[in-house]
C-alpha cells in the first residue's frame, strides 16, 4: 500500500520508510515561525526549557505582522520583546517593519519554505505553505517554544482527504472561491485532524497565488494542512528563491484516502461566506441585497499581487461608493513595489481607495479598519467569526478580490458583472 503526500513528507522527516495514519512520530523541522502575538508567549516558555540557543538561527523565523506598525503601547512592548529575542539569538530571519510582510505572504516569497519541508508556525494559517507541497501546520506558542529548542516536534500522522477539482474555472473565479465552496460543502470541521490534498486539472491550471489562497484556508475546514503536489509551476516559483536544496514528493497511485471528493469547477460561481462561519457560503448571484460599509482587500489569504491585479482591473476608471471605506493592504513590501511598478496604486488612489503598509490589521480586528456595531464588511480575509473585525455586532462577508472590488463600487455585495 502506498503513501499520500503528507505521509511521505512526514516519514522522511521522522527517518522512517513508512508511516501510517494514527501513528505518533517525531519529525525534524525545516523551519519554525511566530509573530508578534504568539512569539512573546513562546519566548517565555522557551526560557523555561534550559537551553541557551535556538536549534538553528537561520530557521527560526519571526515576523511581527499582526499589530504592526504597533497600534498601541502594549503591542509595542510585545514587538520589543520579539525584537530583543531575535537580536540576542542572532536570528537571521527576523523581519522588521519596512522589510516585513504578512508572514504567510512573505515566507514563500523569500524562499524560506520549500517543497517537501515540514514547518510549524504559531499561527493557524501556517497551512498556506501546503501550496508548495510542504507539510506546514499551525501550533500554539508552547509547541513553538519546544520546536525552537529542539528543531523537532511530535505529530500524529493524519488521515488524508483528497479533493479533485475537474473542469475549467469561469471568468473571475479563483482559488478563494474554490476553497470557500469546499468549506461550504464539508463544513468548518469537515477535515478535522486530517490532511487535505487538493488535486485535479483545475488545480494544475491555477496560479501559485491562487493555490496559496486555497491552502491558506484548509484550517477553516479544521484541516491540519492543505497540500498541493509540487509541479512545474511550483518549481518555477521556488527555483529563483530557494537558498537550500528541497525535495519534491508525490502521492502514490495506491495511497489510501479516508475520503475523496470531486468537483466540477465550471459549475462553481464566485463565492461569498456569510456571517458568522466560513461554511456559510453561497454563490454571489444568491447574495441578495446586502449593503456594506467597508471593503478590505488583503490578508494572508488574498494579499498577493494577483489579488491586487484583479481588484485594480475592476476598479480602473471607477470610484468606490461614497459610503464604503475601501482599504487595500498589499501582503508584503515586494507586493507593494510590484503594484507600484504595474500602476495599480494609481488606480487604487484614483478610485478613492486607501492603501496600507503590510499588516494583518483588520483581519483579526487589530487595527487599520475596525468595524462599529451594526457595520458590515466584505473582506478577502479568512474568518467571519463574531467580532472578528471589530464590534461583536458587526458582520464580515468573506469573498475573493473580484467580489470585494465590485462590491466596493456598488456599496452592496455583487460580482464584477454588476459593475463592468
Amino acid at each position: 500500500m502506498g503513501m499520500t503526500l503528507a505521509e511521505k513528507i512526514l516519514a522522511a522527516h521522522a527517518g522512517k520508510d513508512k508511516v501510517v495514519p494514527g501513528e505518533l512520530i517525531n519529525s525534524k523541522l525545516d523551519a519554525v515561525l511566530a509573530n508578534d502575538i504568539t512569539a512573546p508567549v513562546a519566548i517565555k516558555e522557551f526560557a523555561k526549557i534550559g537551553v541557551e540557543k535556538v536549534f538553528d538561527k537561520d530557521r527560526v523565523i519571526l515576523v511581527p505582522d499582526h499589530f504592526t506598525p504597533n497600534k498601541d503601547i502594549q503591542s509595542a512592548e510585545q514587538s520589543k520583546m520579539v525584537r530583543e529575542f531575535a537580536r540576542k539569538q542572532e536570528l537571521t530571519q527576523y523581519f522588521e517593519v519596512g522589510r516585513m510582510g504578512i508572514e504567510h505572504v512573505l515566507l514563500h516569497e523569500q524562499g524560506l519554505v520549500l517543497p517537501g519541508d515540514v514547518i510549524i508556525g504559531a499561527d493557524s494559517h501556517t497551512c498556506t505553505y501546503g501550496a508548495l507541497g510542504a507539510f506546514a501546520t499551525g501550533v500554539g506558542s508552547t509547541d513553538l517554544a519546544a520546536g525552537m529548542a529542539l528543531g523537532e516536534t511530535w505529530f500524529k500522522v493524519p488521515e488524508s482527504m483528497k479533493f479533485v477539482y475537474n473542469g475549467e474555472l469561469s471568468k473571475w473565479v479563483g482559488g478563494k472561491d474554490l476553497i470557500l465552496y469546499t468549506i461550504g460543502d464539508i463544513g468548518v470541521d469537515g477535515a478535522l485532524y486530517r490532511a487535505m490534498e487538493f488535486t485535479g486539472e483545475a488545480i494544475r491550471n491555477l496560479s501559485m497565488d491562487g493555490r496559496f489562497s486555497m491552502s491558506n484556508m484548509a484550517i477553516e475546514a479544521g484541516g491540519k494542512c492543505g497540500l498541493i503536489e509540487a509541479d512545474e509551476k511550483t518549481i518555477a516559483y521556488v527555483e529563483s528563491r530557494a537558498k537550500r536544496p528541497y525535495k519534491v514528493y508525490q502521492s502514490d497511485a495506491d495511497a489510501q484516502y479516508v475520503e475523496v471528493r470531486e468537483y466540477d469547477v465550471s459549475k462553481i460561481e464566485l463565492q461569498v461566506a456569510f456571517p458568522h462561519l466560513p461554511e456559510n457560503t453561497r454563490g454571489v448571484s444568491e447574495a441578495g441585497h446586502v449593503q456594506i460599509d467597508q471593503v478590505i482587500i488583503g490578508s494572508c489569504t488574498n494579499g498577493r499581487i494577483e489579488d491586487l491585479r484583479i481588484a485594480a482591473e475592476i476598479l480602473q476608471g471607477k470610484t468606490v461608493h461614497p459610503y464604503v471605506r475601501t482599504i487595500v493592504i498589499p501582503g508584503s513590501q515586494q507586493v507593494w513595489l510590484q503594484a507600484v511598478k504595474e500602476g495599480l496604486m494609481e488606480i487604487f488612489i484614483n478610485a478613492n481607495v486607501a492603501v496600507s503598509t503590510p499588516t494583518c490589521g483588520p483581519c483579526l480586528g487589530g487595527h487599520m479598519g475596525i468595524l462599529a456595531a451594526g457595520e458590515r464588511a466584505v473582506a478577502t480575509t479568512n474568518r467571519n467569526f463574531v467580532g472578528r473585525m471589530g464590534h461583536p455586532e458587526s458582520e464580515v462577508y468573506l469573498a475573493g478580490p473580484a467580489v470585494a472590488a465590485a462590491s466596493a463600487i456598488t456599496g452592496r455585495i455583487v460580482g464584477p458583472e454588476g459593475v463592468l
Partner: protein
Amino acid sequence: MRFEGKVWKFGKDIDTDLIIPARYLNTSDPAELAKHCMEDADKEFVNKISGGDIIVADKNFGCGSSREHAPIAIKAAGISCVVAKSFARIFYRNSINIGLPIFESPEAAEAIQEGDTLVVDANTGVIKNLTRGEEYVAAPFPEFMQNLIAKGGLINYVREKVKDNA
C-alpha cells in the same frame, strides 16, 4: 485529578475569537486575558462563573486561531475543565501543553445541560452528572499524551529531553 463544578453550556464551533477576542491580545498576561474569557459569546460569563466550573460544548470547540491565549484565558478564569463533542486540533494540543484538562465525549456533550453539576475523574475519563444521576465516559488520551500530562506539560517533557541529550 478530580473536578467538581457547575456546567456552562455552549453550542458548536465555538471559535477562539469568542473565547478571547483578538482586541485583547496585546497582552499575554493570564489574569488580563481571564477578564475577557468568552466575552463575545456571553458578555456576563466571567461575572457568572465560580472557580472550578466546567464548560460543556458541542463539536469543534476552539476552532480558528492558534492563539494559546484561548486555553490560557479559560484556565485563568477558573474553569476546571472543558468537555466537548470534539475539539479543534490546535486548541487540543494547546490545552494539553498548558495544562487545561479537556475531555472529548459526544455522549456527555449531548446529555449535559446548563446548570448541571458534574464530577470528572481525569484519570479514568468518567464524567458523573450529579444533577441527572447519569455517567458518561470520555475517550482516553493516547499513551504519549498521558505521559506529557503526567510530566506537567510539554515544557517539562522537553526540559527532560534536553537534559538527556546533554
